[in-house]
């Protein structure tokens, strides 16, 4: 299997292996954690300052719980790496980026050129999320 990671951060990648959410609670030195679709991302909120990497697993791309997990973390100020792993396909990259993911480890490799094109799918966005892009309504009514 090709190990591939699209990463859009300037800092150094974390080398630590990601632990489960359950294990994380007991390991005060862990800095990387992996969220499965059924996990409650809110359990991590008290510990955001010591987390450097959160992996959100998508066992099937049709399971959209990871999008909410990502936004919740970002909305509460998480600034570390947020990586989508698993069944991550080209056609989902743009939405994932909008929900706060800044790195991707897809099962099937995606070229960085194709990924760049995917991020550019939507010239504008209707919603304010956590990616900093101004919503259309904000452009229509500049403060």
């Amino acid at each position, binding site marked *: 299997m090709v190990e591939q990671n699209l990463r859009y951060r300037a800092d150094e990648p974390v080398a630590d292996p990601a632990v489960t959410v359950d294990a994380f609670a007991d390991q005060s030195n862990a800095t990387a954690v992996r969220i499965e*679709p059924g996990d*409650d991302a809110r359990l991590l909120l008290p510990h955001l300052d010591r987390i450097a990497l959160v992996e959100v697993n998508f066992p099937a*791309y*049709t*399971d*959209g*719980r990871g*999008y*909410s*997990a990502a*936004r919740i973390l970002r*909305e509460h100020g998480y600034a570390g790496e947020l990586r989508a792993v698993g069944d991550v*396909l080209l*056609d*989902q990259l*743009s*939405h*994932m980026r*909008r*929900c706060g993911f800044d790195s991707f480890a897809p099962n099937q490799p995606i070229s960085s050129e194709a990924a760049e094109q995917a991020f550019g*799918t*939507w*010239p*504008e*966005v*209707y*919603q*304010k*999320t956590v990616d900093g892009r101004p*919503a*259309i*309504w904000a*452009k*229509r*009514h500049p403060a």
Partner: protein
Amino acid sequence: MYQYDQYDRSMVDARVAEFRGQVERRLAGDLTEDQFKPLRLKNGLYLQLHAYMLRVAIPYGTLNSRQMRLLGDIADKYDRGYGHFTTRQNIQYNWIKLSDAPNILAELATVEMHAIQTSGNCIRNTTSDQFAGAAADELTDPRPYAELLRQWSTFHPEFDYLPRKFKIAIIASETDRAAMRLHDIGIQLVKNDAGEIGCKFHAGGGMGRTPMIAPVIAEFVPALQMISYLEACLRVYNRYGRRDNKYKARIKILVHEIGAAEYRRQVEEEFAHILTLGLEPPAEELERIKGFFEQPGFEVGASDELDLSDPDFALWVDQNVHAHKQPGYAIVNISLKPTGGIPGDATADQIRLMADLARDHSFDELRVTHAQNIVLPHVKKADLYGIWQKLDEAGLAAANLDLIGDIIACPGLDYCALANARSIPLAQKISNRFADLGRQRDLGELKLKISGCINACGHHHAGHIGILGVDKKGVENYQLSLGGCEGADTSLGQITGPGFSEDGVVDAVEKATDVYLAHRAEGERFVDTYRRIGMAPFKEAIYAKEPAHG
């Protein structure tokens, strides 16, 4: 009506370009069918029994004449000369070629239309009251709020892979013409004691396998917090809605399993957090949108007088024309249910005629109703006779609105890959059996709804008389239910008993109407009598052994 600005246009254009690329990848073999299917579904393109089917969104059921005309032209150019208006206020084409689909979307984009999110486990096209902006009983026009919802739900990045599809309806009258409480979320715009407009939220309604009526989860959310509240509702559903069983994945199951109170508690908690994020479009945006929905330039002092000397016209006015808030004006309902016809189907010529009538007589506006009919919302009473004559010539003057001939039916097994039994031939037989308009009018309001499978696209649970087609060892079989109702007094139908053959269910329907006629009290509709006397007399008559005919 709302008009796109450069931002709205750029979104729809981007979608056309994206889908063109996806179709090219599929035809070139770069995408497998498994990979392509969810992508085409997000653009409303299904593979049905005979061909691809394209479902085009008609946002909150509102159209102008250019849009309607193009829908007719597309039927001629890319389909086989007709389209099918659906119970979700959309239109479907039955004979589309995959290679044509991107061009159709490009043509639709020229009149500010699209097929975005007309399928898939995402937020679907928001539906609303077909009389919005015209009804005398509305608190405010719900369409600006519906447009706000359209924009918010379009390509929402967090809610594109929900546990299941998600349908929102919004109304602003006490009279619910949109079956609001049978939606995943139903919003009624209300006023509080201070006279401010807000949203009464209902969550967890729906039809399908497990029909449920949505309970109230918030009595009053300020209008300028509507989007934030929806974000909270959807986030709780996205995180906790069941994903282990597609038949238990709708929000109604979540609300039912944890209880409305617990769902509300979770939503409120999320809502409090979301309010801190500034996700809500500002008041100026709602005002901007409202500017597109200003009252048309009605002629002041237009006459309310009508010459009803033509008896057929008089019948049509009595049945199909509804009171308008503006003196001298009326709301025209065009029934797409001619005797023996296919409910909801209209030919390209009929579609274009309705477009012309809207342009010339209804301030350029049309509506599609969830009962699969068309509305001209703002017609001067003086124009009614001329309009009726043109409709009559085109086979569009069936005077049967809300009568037993105004049948809702899904496409059923004649077209749909999911269906278990045919719906349309049954609708045609019932329509023919009750062809006599005098008899229909004597029966009064009687909503008959037919679904060809448990997905309930034909809304059979909400029919005064509901019929569900099932597959009984390879043979079509029909279950009859009575007592369903939509609107302010929403109720779900109860099954009468064992199912019937196609002809058998037509007889059973007739027997049910006979019971009603024998028992009705003054002013009672079929459903009222049913509620008063209960199932037993109906059941007895329907399942009575036939006496031998002499």
